């Protein structure tokens, strides 16, 4: 070293500074996980593939072409391929988002700013859909409203009334909007109540002193203050529902109602890769535009939502005589959209014959039978004895635990690199790239990963069909979330705490192990928990990437539903929910133990 030129020495020192080194490695990793896949999918839409022999002649594989774009947007199938699904996507997403807002906002107000009894408990109950798979309601809906008009068994409604449910109520846009809305309202609720809780009552009281009545205060002071949050909730919910796969496939497919996500899936299944990739690009663009619009629209107004945390006081609006009627209303709501769906699923999984909802038909057959009776589910063994279910459960747990662990670790490292490098270009680059997956709807992200990993790229082997690919896609999709939690927990650790260790002679690894990690542990546990929950129930992201050997519970549910083994499908939903709850309980317990040590 001493013989080197001072310039080289300085450069060497700059590069080997742990923060810089870490940032460079992370940057490379992010580019590989996010940047390259996005470029590769775009590239795949403008080149020829061997499969294209079915729709075109005389092309040179790998050569550039606009054929796919022309076929998708201007061809004879364009209407079916892109325009109708596009319209359906926008309609269902917007409808679901509106419904979510209509439910979520009043609930948020009731639970944060009024004296409704039992608010804490209610808050817990209301956010339960957040931890359920997004298509739970869809499956429960089918149990209740399914009709026999399209062949197959009728639902509970038909059993009770003897009238076949009309198609518009059983399938298609109406139930899709309702099922998605009843899931996403929890998301809106969390966003809006966060904003509402941060509005200082002093602001409202000032209005009151000046003579405004309660309604006027709500309208003129509180609402404008949380309006940006509501807008933001609208946009975020909308962009989330764009890429939802489960609900539209379960409720839309029976009547041929397809969204971009489900069309994408169908195209990929039929081997029209290029069209699928184009749909993915369309989804990405749609979602990116929405979020960009959100930034433009409220980017500047947002500033006044963040109200100083100090001396924050929230005065609760008395509901007076409305307290108990409203409480009953909220409880009824929880009952209808959380308890009843789960009960319906349990009930249905216990029904030996598909159409008979009577008590006498209840049996544990689909749970514990040894199989072999071809009369029921073609002789497959009960859920609790099935190797298929066991394998999928193992995969699900492994996938969510490994993903959550990696996301937590990556979040810590990203948080460290971003916070310590604040103001540098490298730090900004990291922050921006790690935000990119946010713009890519789940199903499109899956498609992007197929484009990336179906064939080897340089030294990287083709990962398609491996468990590693599932982990990779889940980790990458969670990047925006992990970097954000990483940054916020790293901000809690004062710069000087680490510097004191530098002066004491601690190497970078020693600092990370003995100072940074212990001090950010609670943030890590919280991040782990959320990633675990969102990964274990995810279908949209992994549906395109699972293969029989890497099957997870949600994909198994999807398969059984396709085969018409609804008892199995619904039973697995229950298993999934139980696993998710048990996992959360365990993580909380371990986290608490670690934190107290």
């Amino acid at each position, binding site marked *: 070293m001493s013989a080197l030129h*001072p*310039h080289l020495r300085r450069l060497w020192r700059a590069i080997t500074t742990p923060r810089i080194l870490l940032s460079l490695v992370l940057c490379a990793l992010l580019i590989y996980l996010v940047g390259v896949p996005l470029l590769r999918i775009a590239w795949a839409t403008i080149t020829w593939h061997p499969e294209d022999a079915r729709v075109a002649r005389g092309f040179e594989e790998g050569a550039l072409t606009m054929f796919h774009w022309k076929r998708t947007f201007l061809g004879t199938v364009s209407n079916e391929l892109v325009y109708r699904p596009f319209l359906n996507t926008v309609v269902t997403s917007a409808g679901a988002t509106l419904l979510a807002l209509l439910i979520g906002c009043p609930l948020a107000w009731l639970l944060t700013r009024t004296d409704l009894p039992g608010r804490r408990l209610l808050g817990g109950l209301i956010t339960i859909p957040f931890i359920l798979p997004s298509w739970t309601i869809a499956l429960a809906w089918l149990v209740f409203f399914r009709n026999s008009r399209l062949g197959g068994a009728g639902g509970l409604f038909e059993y009770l009334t003897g009238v076949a449910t009309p198609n518009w109520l059983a399938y298609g846009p109406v139930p899709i909007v309702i099922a998605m809305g009843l899931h996403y309202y929890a998301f809106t609720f969390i966003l809006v109540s966060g904003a509402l809780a941060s509005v200082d009552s002093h602001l409202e009281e000032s209005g009151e002193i000046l003579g405004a009545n309660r309604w006027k205060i709500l309208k003129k002071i509180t609402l404008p203050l949380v309006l940006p949050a509501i807008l933001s909730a609208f946009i975020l919910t909308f962009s989330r529902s764009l890429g939802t796969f489960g609900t539209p496939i379960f409720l839309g497919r029976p009547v041929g109602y397809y969204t971009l996500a489900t069309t994408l899936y169908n195209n990929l299944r039929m081997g029209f890769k290029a069209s699928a990739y184009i749909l993915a690009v369309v989804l990405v663009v749609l979602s990116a535009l929405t979020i960009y619009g959100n930034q433009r629209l409220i980017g500047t107004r947002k500033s006044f939502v963040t109200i100083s945390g100090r001396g924050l006081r929230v005065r609760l609006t008395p509901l007076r005589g409305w307290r108990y009627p409203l409480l009953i209303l909220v409880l009824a709501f929880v009952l209808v959209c959380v308890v009843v769906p789960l009960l319906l699923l349990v009930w249905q999984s216990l029904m030996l014959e598909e159409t008979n909802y009577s008590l006498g038909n209840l049996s544990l057959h689909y749970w514990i039978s040894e199989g072999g009776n071809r009369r029921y589910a073609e002789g497959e063994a009960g859920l609790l004895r099935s190797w298929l279910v066991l394998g999928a459960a193992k995969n699900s747990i492994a996938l969510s635990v490994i993903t959550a662990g990696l996301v937590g670790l990556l979040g810590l490292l990203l948080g460290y690199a971003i916070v310590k490098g604040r*103001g540098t270009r490298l730090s900004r680059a990291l922050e921006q790239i790690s935000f990119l997956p946010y713009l890519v709807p789940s199903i499109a992200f899956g498609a992007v990963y197929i484009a990336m990993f179906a064939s080897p790229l340089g030294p990287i082997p083709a990962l398609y069909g491996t468990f590693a690919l599932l982990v990779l896609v889940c980790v990458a999709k969670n990047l925006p979330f992990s970097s954000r939690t990483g940054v916020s927990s790293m901000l809690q650790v*004062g710069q000087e705490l680490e510097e004191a260790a530098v002066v004491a002679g601690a190497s970078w690894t020693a600092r990370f192990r003995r100072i940074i990690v212990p001090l950010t542990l609670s943030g890590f546990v919280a991040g782990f928990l959320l990633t675990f929950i969102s990964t274990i129930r995810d279908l949209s992201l992994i549906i395109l990437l699972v293969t029989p050997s890497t099957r997870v519970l949600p994909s198994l549910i999807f398969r059984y539903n396709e085969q018409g083994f609804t008892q199995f499908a619904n039973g697995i939903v229950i298993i999934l929910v139980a696993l998710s709850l048990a996992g959360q309980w365990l993580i909380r317990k371990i986290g608490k133990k670690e934190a107290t040590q």
Partner: protein
Amino acid sequence: MRRIELRNVSKRFGKVVAVNDLSLVIEPGSFLTVLGPSGCGKTTVLRMVAGLEDPDCGEILIDGRPIFSHQQGIHVPPSRRGLGLVFQSYALWPHMTVFENVAFGLELAHLPAQEISRRVAQALSDLQLAGMEGRYPQEMSGGQQQRVALARMLAPRPGIFLLDEPLSNLDARLRMDMRSELKRLHRDTGATVVYVTHDQIEALTLSTHVAVMKEGVLEQLAPPDVVYRRPATVFVADFIGTPKMNLLPAAVRGQGEAAVLDFGAFTLCYPGPPALERVIVGIRPESIMLYLEPQQGAVEFETYSVLPAGAELIVNVRRGDLMLTIRETRPMTIEMDRKIWLSFVPATFNLYDPVTSRLLTDGSGGPVP
């Protein structure tokens, strides 16, 4: 006993120049206070010596050996510079007990366990913290946390102490106590101390040398009494001392023995002034004599406000547009809006060049260090 030297050190953060071409020698065993308003670059100086920040150019030497050199590309890591650092926030690790906090550096140095407990016990008892080994920092008072931070710095026995505003988070009484402890600590260890503060009382009471900084530039480096009596620049004169030094623009009339300083509202004889037409005259509030009755050679003023403060009395007086502050230590009562008479001792005046703001040392009459 360690000698620290900074040679032409500069540091900028983005467009802000935090330290501008600073050269400074800190003699072995001295207690140097770096003093200045917030944002003057004093903490940056400390962090560069510690090795937490690299200068953009220049060199830093300890005992003549470069520990940082931009030209040669040398950077010795902080832990191998043989120094201890106390942060303004104390930076005690909240997940470690007092013992673990103090032992951390010793563990990293791979000292045997026995030696570690011996040294930790020693450091803690030196700072009257014996028996608190098992506590967590957040269970202690601010003063105790401060002591833990000091103990953590002392335990590895560094030859250089770097202290970044260590007392600024304590209340006034505790601060007084800690000052005396720090002075004792310096005496007993013989370490070279660099102490950063914006509190001039701390600087004057603790140090053997004071370095006053302004906007990244060293304004004066001198023993505290010199900094107080003969501030090298108008900035230092204005910054040091409470109440502040009176700084009055004046015209110089006449030459030699017959020279007169014309303040506008009044004039004073001033033998042997510099060859300048205008000067700024600095007069310490305590060097003005105050009389309640007319005196020979005294100038008549009117009291504007009178602020008793126990041991002393601060009197603001005016004559025309001219305002002056006087510190009176004799017990007396003075009403507001009454006539009083002031007499001046020109030998205590500091004259400054209004253009360069520097102290004029030629013929200013007083003893120049």
